[in-house]
Each structure stands twice: as C-alpha cells, then as structure tokens.
C-alpha cells in the first residue's frame, strides 16, 4: 500500500486526498501549517489553514481562496479525514492530522512544546506516522523556561534605560515579535516597531488577538522621542541604516541560535536571548514519544542526527530532505513590501 503522504518535488503530497501540505511550488490545493514564508508559498489555487493563519496569509500572499478552520474541525477531502491541531509555534500555526482507511499521519509543521501563552498550547496527537521538524535537534539546545528568559530580557532593557541606551530587540516579525511585545509590555507603555512587525501585529490585533499595540517607526518619528526607547526590529533591519536614528542603542537578538556563543558573537549583538519558537531537543523527544508513532520522518534541521538517535532508541525514524528553511535565521520579508 502506498503511504498516505509521499515526498514529491512539490512537497508533502497526500495522494488519496489529492492535496499538498506546505508545498513549495504552486498546486491546486494546499493545506498550510503556518504563515512563515518557507511553509506558505505563493501561487496555489486553494489554501486551507487555521483561522488565525488566514489574515497572515492574506498579508503575505495577497487575495486568494483561503478556507479557514478551527482546531479540531473535521473536514473530508476526497475521503481523507483532515483536522488541524495546535502546534504552539506562532499564532495560527497547526499540526495537520490525516486519517484514511484506518491509517493516521500527523505533519507537525514547526512547533514548540512550551506554551507561550499566545500561540495555543502544543497538543500531542496519537498517530501511526509522525513527520516532525528538527530545527534544534541536538542536545545542546535545551531552552530555559520562557519566564526566565523574559526576566533576563526585561532586566537587560531596564539596564539599558538606566544608562541612556535605546533597546533594539531583533525578533522575527511573525511569532517572536509578538512574544517579545507581550514580555516587554509589562515594563513599558510604549513599544516601537519596524513596519514589518507593526504590520503583522496590526493584522493580528484586528483579527481579535489580545496583543499590545505597537508604535510604528516612520521617517517622521522624531529622534528625541526615541531616546532610551524600546524598539522591535526584524532580522533584516539588523545593522541597516534604519537603526541609526536610535543611537545610542544596544541590540539584543531573540533566537534559539543564541544558545551558542559563536552565534552571538557572529551576529555582533550586545545581547542574545535563546528564545525560540521551535522545540528544543527534549521537546522534540517528548513530542515524538507522545505521538506513539511507529514511524518518524525528521525534516528540516538536524534531521540526520535526530533520526539516528531515534533509531538507536528503538524508534523507527527516517530523514527527509525538504525545502523548508529556518525562519529563526533567515531574512524576514513578511510585509516588508508594504512599508
């Protein structure tokens, strides 16, 4: 029997349902796990996604045919039973559960196992086959609890304020920026943001998510107002001339890669916060275990090491090469065109 999901040049393909999950080329029907640009690509005829994901897809991909669903809604596509479940990665991110002729598969998309309070808590789903990401699939990635990182971030910002520096937090505009805005709203009334982040935040607020409102930086924003301010900026703005007007400032990068000193030094940041929207090593192992799956397919990240380790632990695991990238590091283009 052919597996329920096959790995094709277009992406993950469900043959009996005749649809794709996060395809990287245009197809007729695409189910989207979340709105990051390596998972949600342009050009497909129909998209199905979580309700929270839809406005973000519209922002990124423009008008089109989007079918929003709630987590747990059951839809049949050509006889395949499809449902979405929280992945805890970013707002609107979902795992995709497929069931057909007694066989259950789950595609994780990107996920994290710690509940960040805004993206929905990751829900382990029993299945026969689990396709998991492995962005941080090495034991060196062992996150501190969110509250601890938030505390560090706040005291860093306070310290900067006291010594007259603006704090620029570099955070991916979809996901990380929302978390950082929630973290810092505890110590400030006003958070400034780069246009890319302001756009995403605005759309999410309009869609009913309870997030702090951000003040958009424009060419007219007076310099004096920005003295010692708190500013959220996407990775693409890091080191650009856009940052000049905040001088004097210190930069803090919020990314799981900051776990390793070399990365902090490479990025020339004044501070690095290992705050990630992906599961750490223990999170990945826990998730795999809780699915009870017989077969694990590890995609984007340290898939070789992760699948080898699982095999040694007696879990049948395979590695799969995909075109998914790593949005913690890559350039952030969400909404940049609309600034």
């Amino acid at each position, binding site marked *: 029997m052919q597996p329920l999901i096959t790995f094709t040049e277009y992406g993950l393909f469900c043959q009996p349902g005749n649809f794709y999950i996060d395809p990287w080329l245009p197809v007729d029907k695409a189910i989207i796990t979340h709105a990051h640009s390596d998972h949600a690509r342009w050009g497909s005829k129909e998209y199905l996604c979580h309700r929270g994901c839809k406005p973000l897809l519209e922002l990124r991909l423009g008008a089109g045919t989007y079918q929003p669903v709630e987590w747990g809604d059951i839809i049949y596509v050509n006889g395949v039973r499809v449902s979405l479940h929280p992945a805890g990665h970013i707002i609107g991110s979902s795992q995709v559960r497929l069931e057909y002729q007694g066989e259950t598969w789950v595609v994780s998309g990107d996920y994290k196992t710690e509940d960040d309070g805004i993206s929905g808590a990751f829900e382990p789903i029993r299945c026969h086959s689990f396709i998991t990401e492995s962005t941080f699939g090495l*034991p*060196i990635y062992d996150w501190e609890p969110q509250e601890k990182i938030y505390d560090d971030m706040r005291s860093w910002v306070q310290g900067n304020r006291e010594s007259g520096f603006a704090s620029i937090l570099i955070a991916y505009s979809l996901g990380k920026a929302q978390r950082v805005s929630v973290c810092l709203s505890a110590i400030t009334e006003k958070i400034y943001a780069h246009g890319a982040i302001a756009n995403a935040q605005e759309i999410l607020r309009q869609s009913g998510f309870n997030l702090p409102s951000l003040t958009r930086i424009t060419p007219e924003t007076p310099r004096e107002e920005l003295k010692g301010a708190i500013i959220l900026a996407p990775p693409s703005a890091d080191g650009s001339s856009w940052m000049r007007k905040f001088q004097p400032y210190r930069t803090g990068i919020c990314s799981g890669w900051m776990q*390793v000193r*070399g*990365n*902090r*030094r490479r990025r020339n*940041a004044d*501070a690095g916060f290992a705050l990630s929207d992906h599961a750490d090593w223990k999170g990945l192992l826990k998730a795999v275990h809780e699915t009870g799956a017989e077969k694990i397919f590890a995609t984007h990240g340290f898939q070789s090491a992760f699948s*080898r380790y699982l095999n040694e632990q007696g879990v049948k695991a395979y590695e799969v090469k995909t075109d998914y990238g790593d949005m913690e590091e890559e350039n952030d283009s969400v909404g940049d065109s609309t600034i």
Partner: protein
Amino acid sequence: MTVLETVPYDQEEISGGMHRFSVLVNTLGTSTKTNEKLDALTSYFQQAPGKDKVWVIALFSGRRPKRVVNSRLLAEWSREQAGLPPWLFEECYHTVGDLAETIALVLPSPESDSPEHNLSWYIERLAELGPLPEVEKKAFMLECWRELGKDGRFVFNKLITGGFRIGVSQQLMVQSLARVTGLEASIVAHRISGNWEPALVSFAELLSGEGMSEDHSKPYPFYLAYALEGGPDSLGDPVEWQAEWKWDGIRGQLIRRNGQLFVWSRGEELMTDKFPEFNPLLQLLPEGTVLDGEIMPAREGKPLPFALLQTRIGRKNVTKKQLTEAPVAFFAYDLLEYAGNDFRDIALEERRGQLEQLLTSLHHPVLLLSPVITFGEWRELERIREQSRDKVAEGIMLKRRSSVYQVGRKRGDWWKWKIDPLTIDAVMVYAQKGHGRRSNLYTDYTFAVRDGEILVTFAKAYSGLTDKEIGQVDHFVRQNSLEKFGPVRTVKPELVFEIAFEGIAASGRHKSGVALRFPRISRWRHDKGPEDINTLDDLKKMLEMYGK
C-alpha cells in the same frame, strides 16, 4: 612611592569571584565596542578579588595553568552525565565548535545555587588534582559541574581546555590596568610580560614590580606596524623615512642581561632553547643589550624561505640534522636597550647608528644587520619593492627616522608596505564547520586544482569571505554534500575561489607537492566554473619561480 597604594587589592574575603569572572568573559565575548570592553575590564580589575585578578592577567596573556585532565576524559565524563552516545556528543561538538562550551551545554541543569568560590579557588584545586588518581579527578569535575551554572561551567572548563580567545587584545588589558593603577601603559605592559608565576605573585607585586626578584629575561612590548594602504605618497617627504625589507620570519627580541641570553618571540614565547645557534652571542654582546629583529633561516648571510624553518620550530629539541639543514640567523633592525639603558625614547636614527656600530664590531655570522634600503623618490622605492620576492621579503617596512619605539600597534610612524600576494583559482572540494564566531557554519574549506581529469587538493583556507558570502557558501555546502556525520563534508566541486598566498615551497607531505604560506580566499570567482580553474602545472611553475 607608588600610586598602587590607593587601590583596594587582595581582599580575599570577597567570594563569588567565579561568577564575576564568567560575567566578564561573557561581556568581553559579546561586546562589539572597544570602550565597553575596556570598561568591563577596568571595573573587573577594580572590584575582583586580588588573586583572581592576577589569574585573569595570566589567562588573558596566554599563561594557562598546567592541564590536569585531557579533553578525551572531559568529553567522556560529561557525555556520561548527559547520557549521550559518543557520536552525538561529537555532532554537538562540531556544531558548537568549542569543547568547553559543548560540555557546559549538554550537562544536565545545575542542582543548586550553592555559593560559588573565587576563580583562584578553582585554579588552585585544579592544580592539586595533578598527581591524584583519575577517580578523584572525576569526582571533583562532576562536583564542580553540578554546582556551577551554564556560564560558570563554561569558564571552568576553559580553565582546563585553555585558550581564552575572546577578543581581548593584550593592549586592551594593559590599558585597563593602566587606568586602574594610574601607571603608564608602557610600564604596565613591561611588568606583565616575561616570566612570572601567577600562583606566587600578588596583584600589587606584579604591577609595582616590587617584591619580585628582578626579572632579567623580560622583553619590551613589541612595536607593531599597520599596513600601508594606497602607497607611500601620503607619508610626505621620503627623506624623513627609513626603508627596510619586511622579512617573513619570526619577530623576536634577543636579550643579554645578567650574564644570560634570552630569545623571545612576539607571541611572548621564550625560545632560547630552540635556537642554540645564538649561544655564542652571550660572550659577544655587551651586558644590558636588547635587540629587536627577525629570526630567519639563513645561509652565508642570505635569508632563506621561511618554510625551511617549519620543520624545526615545532620541536622541543633541535636535532643536529635540523641545525645543518635549516640554520638560522638574527636579522637585527632595532636596538632597544644598550649598556643597560632603555633606548626606546631615542629617535630611530640614533638607535640605528648605535646598532650598526655594535653589529659591525661584533661581526658574527648569526647576528646580521637587516639592511636599510637607500632610495631617492617614492617611485624608486616602488620599483625596488618589486624585487621583494627575490629577497625572500614580503615587502618593505617604512619607519620614520625621528620615531621613538612605541608599544603595540600604532599608526603614524611605522608602516608595512607589502607586495601583492600570489594568486591561483581553485575549486572547493571539502568543507568543515568553523569555531568561535563561525561555529555551526561551514567556513573552513579545502581547495583543489586540476591535474588532467582529476582534482588535487593543495590548500586549506578559512578567511577572506564576508559574513554574507559565508552564509551563501554554507547554504551551498548543506545542499550539495554527501556525508551526514562528522566534521568534514565532501562538496560537489562547483564553487571557484581565488586563493591568495605569500609564498610557495616544495612539500613531501602534501599530495600536490607544494605547501603555501598564508593561503586565504581573496575573492569568490562567480564568473568562473570548475573547468576554468588553474592546474597543478600552474602551481609547479609558481614553485619554480618563487619557491627558492
């Protein structure tokens, strides 16, 4: 009388010194601004426990404690604690690029926040471990790992694995100590150089120079030149300048004091034993002499390619055979101390006069005068510079005749005007992950030239690309490599780079038969494919032209 009396030091009751030290290391490691680093060091030297301060000076100037546990055991014990198979620990190591940090990251979270000891406490305990059996070493390591947080563990491990390469120049440390003590930077630099034992000297003693037996071996801090960009026209009138060949050897100081001879390298390594040729100079040099110059392989007064020396500098004991095959000479170009007087504040012109007089009178075949190049106009010197390779030189040094001998790298009076490197186009065939700020990125590459249908590797290089380019190459490697584990990836031979290097020599150890000096990537040849690269014959021709 010393300004040091006002400085609070040796307050050994202060605890938590290890935490203070790890904060310092962290700040120095991530800060991008020299001033912030300077502030961090200054406040450290103002507040830290005295013994810790001495150790920090020692550690940051490359004096590490004797290694008591080897890397293999450290890795094994930490892996055991973390419950990881060996291959997975290896993968982690290759991604992190630093053993001390890898161990700190994989260990289970610390058990308690027990109060931390001072840095000196850990170093002293480690020293005591030396003769103890392995089980006791292990027990101590595990205990320290259990009580230290992630950052603490990292610096603790670094004490054992060595090498605090964290972007602190000797100069920066000297500046901060000068601030704290109120002493001149040049005095501080001299006092913390040379031979001293961190366990036996206090911070006050070290910096006041008191209480210690006078150390006769101490070299002066070296004066270093900046590269001259865009030619000498900006330097003004040529008559104000002295030109010399820029040698490609080991910069060193030759010292005769107190009836003893010392040879120091620029890296502050005492190398007297490595160059027995210099022994006769002890009888010849007047008491209280310090010469600055270049140690070069040489025969009958003529410098030879540096590659000749490679076979003997790594050895602890030099063999007779090496002495005859790779003889050395000291090419002196400056006189820093004469008849026990510090000459550094005297103008170069005068120092040079005295140096020439001294060396002419000694007339010894291993102590040679590095010649001054006579020239009229800058254009003329430019033409002379083109002969650099024939002279086994890297270019020309320009020194202002009126200049004093400064400390460290300074602009203005000394310039190095190097010749353009040799270049060759080659294709990348292997890639390896880097270390430090390049960890988890494929940054170390092996290059090959063509020999008919096959590719022959000839050089490894890891610098010269921008961060953005490194990112692109890294992406290419990940998409186009075969093996999955271990540090090295065999890459589809597709990316072509121009490799620049300073010299070329015959080598029996390399498949290609040549060894390059200072190979690095000079640019990415996007315009070229693997079919356009240079051949092994091209390399061999270069060897014939420049390899002698």
